[in-house]
């Protein structure tokens, strides 16, 4: 029971991070039918951006309040990463629009390799670590000498995720920007006939996806305190798995998928073996896809026209 409660907390925290990344995959797939393989590395870059700004703000500028520093780091990382997302779309994907379907995906793999190597060269190949940032914990209850704890970090991660997802949900469902985005997703040609600038809308999709990845990157940095240039790959693949599991193209599906993957992984590590946690996560994917080929919340291919 104690272990279960603790792992539930840990799993939800990890799942929030996966969910935030998964949205970027699912949105881009929804609008241009492309799997953005570079998205995991965009997440990794954002974690580095977060670390660099954190060090700049706390040591150079001497901001003493950690809360203020973290807030600034979050905003700056979102802005900078959004700029990365915009630039990558412009340089690597837009010129290939109208080309064959696989072209932008191959380009995305290239971008992924580029980003990882760029960070390796500019930041060094070793993992960068900072001293633990927020260390306080709340002990929820204690039994048989096992304390179930909720750390401040976990509270921050879960609440920031919840707030930003709500804001994001509002943008997509209630604003004309979100409406234009959904219109392009459903019928690009018609959206253009109604005066929607499709290229601009696609750019904005990349910008939004990158900004949410930056939230995940900042949270990842805050949680683990260690960032390395290879950190984009595994979380990227997990988040992609989450997007497929939830039903690619579905935004609530991406979040749900992220939480499921996070929980499966943590529980497997706790009860079975930590070495096989990735196997467990991917097995769930395989099993779900056998019985629900379009994912948990994905829509079936056939639709009434």
């Amino acid at each position, binding site marked *: 029971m104690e272990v279960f409660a603790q792992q539930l907390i840990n799993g939800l925290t990890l799942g929030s991070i996966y969910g935030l990344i998964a949205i970027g995959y699912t949105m881009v797939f929804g609008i241009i039918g492309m799997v953005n393989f570079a998205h995991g590395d965009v997440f990794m870059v954002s974690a580095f951006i977060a670390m660099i700004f954190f060090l700049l703000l706390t040591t150079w500028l001497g901001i003493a309040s950690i809360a203020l520093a973290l807030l600034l780091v979050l905003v700056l990382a979102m802005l900078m990463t959004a700029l990365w997302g915009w630039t990558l779309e412009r340089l690597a994907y837009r010129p290939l629009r109208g080309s064959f379907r696989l072209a932008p995906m191959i380009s995305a793999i290239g971008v992924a390799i580029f980003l990882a190597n760029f960070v390796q060269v500019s930041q060094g190949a070793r993992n960068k670590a900072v001293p633990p940032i927020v260390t306080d914990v709340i002990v929820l209850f204690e039994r048989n000498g096992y304390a179930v704890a909720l750390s401040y970090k976990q509270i921050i991660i879960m609440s920031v995720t919840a707030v930003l997802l709500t804001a994001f949900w509002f943008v997509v469902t209630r604003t004309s920007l979100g409406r234009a985005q*959904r219109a392009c997703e459903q019928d690009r040609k018609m959206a253009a006939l109604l*005066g929607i600038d499709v290229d601009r809308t696609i750019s904005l999709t990349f910008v939004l996806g990158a900004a949410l990845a930056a939230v995940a990157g900042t949270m990842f940095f805050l949680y683990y305190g260690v960032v390395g240039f290879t950190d984009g790959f595994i979380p990227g693949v997990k988040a992609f798995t989450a997007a497929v599991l939830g039903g690619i193209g579905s935004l609530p599906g991406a979040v749900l998928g992220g939480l499921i993957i996070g929980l499966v992984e943590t529980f497997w590590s706790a009860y079975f073996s930590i070495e096989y946690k990735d196997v467990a996560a991917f097995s769930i994917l395989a099993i779900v896809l056998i019985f629900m080929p379009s994912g948990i919340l994905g829509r079936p291919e056939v639709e*009434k026209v």
Partner: protein
Amino acid sequence: MSAAVQNPEAAGQPLLSVRGVKTYYGNIIALKGIDIDVNEGEIVTLIGANGAGKSTLMMTIFGNPRAREGTITYAGRDITRLPTHEIARLNIAQSPEGRRIFPRMTVYENLQMGAAINKFAWFEQDLERVTTMFPRLKERLHQRGGTLSGGEQQMLAIARALMSRPKLLLLDEPSLGLAPLVVKQIFDVIRELNTKDGMTIFLVEQNAYHALKLAHRAYVMVTGAITLSGTGRELLEDPQVQAAYLEGGR
């Protein structure tokens, strides 16, 4: 809304002018040099068989596919090379072939999409207007577009086009696959838009009889070329047109 122009001949320069337009799909020519004028305040119809290139012309006016040769002028401005969304922002609206309703948006959201170019300035007013025109849409306002019947989708496509308050309305086969009663309703709406609001309408139809009765002027398209033109009445009485498009077709 501009006042109705009763006599189309008096309206000077055409609102839309298509000159020598050739469109290709890959290497296959779809439009072989089209000349068409639509004057302000007119209903102009384009009739022709399946695959003649009528819908291609409608889309070529919007630059998708783009005309490889020739020019398209709208309100005195060359729009041949403009991106599709910028053409739409010049206040031309289209209810395209296949209706193209956003299936996972509600009827209300579909209508909002129609009003996007003028920043929802008259949204409530225009919503009231189109739902009065098509009461079925009012009942279905919060239902997803994909769940509507064919006729309802057609009404929605027209209503969505009207939400932008277009100066020129392009309608591609609004009667396709609809019950006769609904067809009559839709043709009544088109006539009313023209006579009451003075809206200029370019109508593509296979339902030649209704279209020719409604139109001031008409063109006949056969495999990518205009073969006949004249007033609606002239074409209605033309023996060739009667043989090819009207025989038993009314």
